[in-house]
């Protein structure tokens, strides 16, 4: 049952990721990317990381996709003014895709023997909100504060960059 669910979710993830790249219209790409993000959230929930799945849906499908869709609509991109890359570039892209894929897959297959049947089975709760919050605010409290500063600075930076220049045209 869980295996079938995993294969359905994986097909959805990979298919929508491919369609994100191959769609001509940027808005269609964004919508396929939302489908991909939702299926990845499904993977998280399948792995018993429910809180992470919810956070993923909120951050990616909520915040980031709204930002991207808003930018696409602000720029008023049409399908017609998108110029295709030259044919050689596409062939090179496909070849390098195959090369990277074969390399990484062969590395993963070679490394496969080392972690066979070593599944930890502590039996204790390790991924509920309770435990995650304790670890986040105890062991990792300094990175947590740094992330808060980073988000504040990125917000200030985004406002500063996209502000209109009034003095120099």
């Amino acid at each position, binding site marked *: 049952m*869980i*295996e079938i669910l995993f294969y359905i979710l*994986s097909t959805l*993830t*990979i298919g929508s*990721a491919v369609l*994100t*790249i191959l769609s001509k219209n940027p808005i269609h790409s*964004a919508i396929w990317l939302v489908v991909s*993000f939702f299926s*990845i959230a499904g993977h998280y929930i*399948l*792995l*018993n*990381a429910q809180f*992470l799945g919810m*956070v*993923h849906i909120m*951050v*990616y499908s909520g*915040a*980031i996709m709204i*930002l*991207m869709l808003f*930018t*696409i609509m602000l*720029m008023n*991109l049409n399908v017609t003014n*998108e*110029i295709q*890359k030259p044919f050689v570039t596409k062939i090179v*892209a*496909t070849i390098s*895709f195959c090369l*990277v*894929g074969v390399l*990484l*897959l062969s590395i*993963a297959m070679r490394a*496969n023997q080392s*972690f066979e049947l070593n*599944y*930890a*089975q*502590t039996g*204790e*709760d*390790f991924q509920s909100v309770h435990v*995650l919050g304790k*670890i*986040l605010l105890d062991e*990792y409290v300094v990175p947590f504060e740094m*992330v808060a500063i*980073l*988000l504040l*600075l*990125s917000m200030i*930076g985004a406002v500063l*960059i*996209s502000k209109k220049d009034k003095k120099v045209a």
Partner: protein
Amino acid sequence: MVNVLEIIGIDSYIYLSVILFCIGVFGILYRRNAIIMFMCIEIMLNSANMLLVAFSTYHQDASGQVFVFFTMAVAAAEVAVGLAILVAIFRNIGSIDIDNLKNLKG
């Protein structure tokens, strides 16, 4: 608590993440629309995140999920600044085709 990975197998998740990462690399090389390239970066970040969560379940250790939180925060910050830069570029040049961005070319 049952370890779900005993049913699925950690190698399935490794292969899925590798394929997703390769799709992201392919998209970066294949498209010239800067927004689509941003989406491909998101796909690659997500593949890494998924592997972190899978190995967190594999070792029954919550630290992997904490790293995923930090990655998500960094991704959100990166997208906010990146899209602001894209808007500024679009205002100056009138397109976000990356082949038009050759002002820095020596």
